[in-house]
């Protein structure tokens, strides 16, 4: 009888943890990504060789290697759980990467290992999509205007630079991650990782020219923790 009780107690604990995983009430890690120092001044992109794109802008758009916002905030930083969370199977929704005005939207696209990646071309010109992975397979596909979206996926976690050889100013990044706990900073530099079950995590922030930083954080219950990242900006 005692054994039976113990088994039941153990199962009850498992059930409790199951609720914590499934429920929306897990812990949250949020914060802001900022920079200190002087970031490089972004140059306007010369699209004169591609008039169909150049005419989409009243004034030439700036390069997006470093995008800053009000209050020294830093955009296009992917903040993710690099350790402590189990690998997750890919969601059924596709991550969408759009070529518009001879730029990549978004500039940095984060998605999961084996998740479908859909690439579309909304321009009146041909692009070639040429991601340059080191761990995954390297492919290079042409996408003339009006052709259907390209569907691909990556089976290893990696940060992959993406370029278009026809339009040398086009640069982007695929952040292929192992779990769903990630957030990409937009205007304001804020990020939020929700639904983290109790545990010890390593939170990493990655920026394409400033590298990465990590901080450890322990979540108990449904608490909300604040983690801020400050990158050292380089003036060149």
């Amino acid at each position, binding site marked *: 009888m005692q054994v039976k009780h113990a088994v*039941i107690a153990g*199962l*009850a604990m*498992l*059930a409790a*943890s*199951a609720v914590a995983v499934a429920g929306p009430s897990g812990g949250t890690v949020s914060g802001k990504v900022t920079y200190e120092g002087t970031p490089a001044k972004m140059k306007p992109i010369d699209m004169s*060789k591609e008039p169909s794109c150049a005419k989409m802008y009243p004034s030439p758009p700036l390069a997006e290697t470093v995008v800053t916002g009000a209050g020294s905030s830093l955009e296009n930083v992917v903040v993710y759980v690099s350790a402590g969370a*189990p*690998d*997750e*199977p890919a969601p059924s929704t596709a991550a969408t990467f759009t070529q518009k005005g001879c730029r990549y939207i978004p500039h940095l696209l984060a998605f999961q290992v084996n998740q479908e990646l859909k690439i579309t071309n909304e321009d009146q*010109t*041909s692009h*070639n*999509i*040429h991601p*340059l992975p*080191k761990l995954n*397979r*390297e*492919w*290079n*596909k*042409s*996408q*003339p205007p009006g*052709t*259907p979206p*390209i569907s691909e996926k990556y089976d290893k976690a990696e940060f992959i630079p993406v370029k278009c*050889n*026809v*339009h*040398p100013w086009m640069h982007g990044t695929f952040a292929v991650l192992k779990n769903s706990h990630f957030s990409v900073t937009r205007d304001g530099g804020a990020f939020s990782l929700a639904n983290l079950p109790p545990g010890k995590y390593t939170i990493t922030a990655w920026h394409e020219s400033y590298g990465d930083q990590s901080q450890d954080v322990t979540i108990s219950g449904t608490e909300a923790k604040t983690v801020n990242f400050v990158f050292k900006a380089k003036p060149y």
Partner: protein
Amino acid sequence: MLNIKKLCLNVAVALMLPAGLVAQLADQPAAKPSAHLESHVGNLTGHSEAGRPLYYRYCWGCHGARGDGNGENAPYLTPQPRNFVAATFKCRSTPTGTLPLDQDLYNSLVRGFNFTNMPSWAALTAQSRADLVAFIKTFSARWVTEKPGDPIPIPAEPKLTLESLKHGGELYQKLECWKCHGQEGRGDGPSASTLTDSNDQPIRPFNFTTTNRSKCGKTNQDLYRIFMTGVDGTPMPSFADVIKPEDAWDLVHYLRTLQYNNRSPELALWESTKEGREIVNAKHVQNTYTGSGIQP
């Protein structure tokens, strides 16, 4: 009591399933390259053990002792020697991003690579080449974890017509081949000077006017194959998903008319028209030693 027990059991079972899945994902050991591999080329079977001494006699000076393309001569070469660890190959019959067939690698050995330091190895025996193909596959774990792609089918070449040539010319504009290869196919398009390969080294688009021998072969089938597969590791993308086979053949026919020093049936047909003859004649530059014949 019983109900609770049942419920708990159900929850436990439900938990175990995803947990098992996750463990499987996390515990996958990194694949290692295989030490012993075979290659199959026609009736030949190549063995990596037999290929090893050949590699360390003929190949490693450029491709490196570890097959990573960092051999003693590599710093002096452009384009750089292939990195067999990355296993990204230019000349394939398989779709972009997939491994080539043994036959593709074998053909590359026979042919060599025009405009590079990779010579033809036709002087070796067929068996030696097959052995070398087997050996270079031992450098990358991709040959263990992946299978070569399915070859891109090449339908029979349609009859050459003037419409085919003209339509090919339209496609050359529409698919924006000229952005890199130039309006006259001289490899001097507006993006040409900015191109780099996957090693970040400058690379030039193919100049159709110099020769009919491109890196991956010289027949019409080879040309067709090149733009269907793309040339992996270079800026040349694959057009397999965006071009119909009959259109691709039209483009092949048109490309031959750009090779104005190569007497091909396509060029002959093109020159039989007034428009074509004028275009081809305009490309011939006389007295080039001093440039005296060049009209401004």
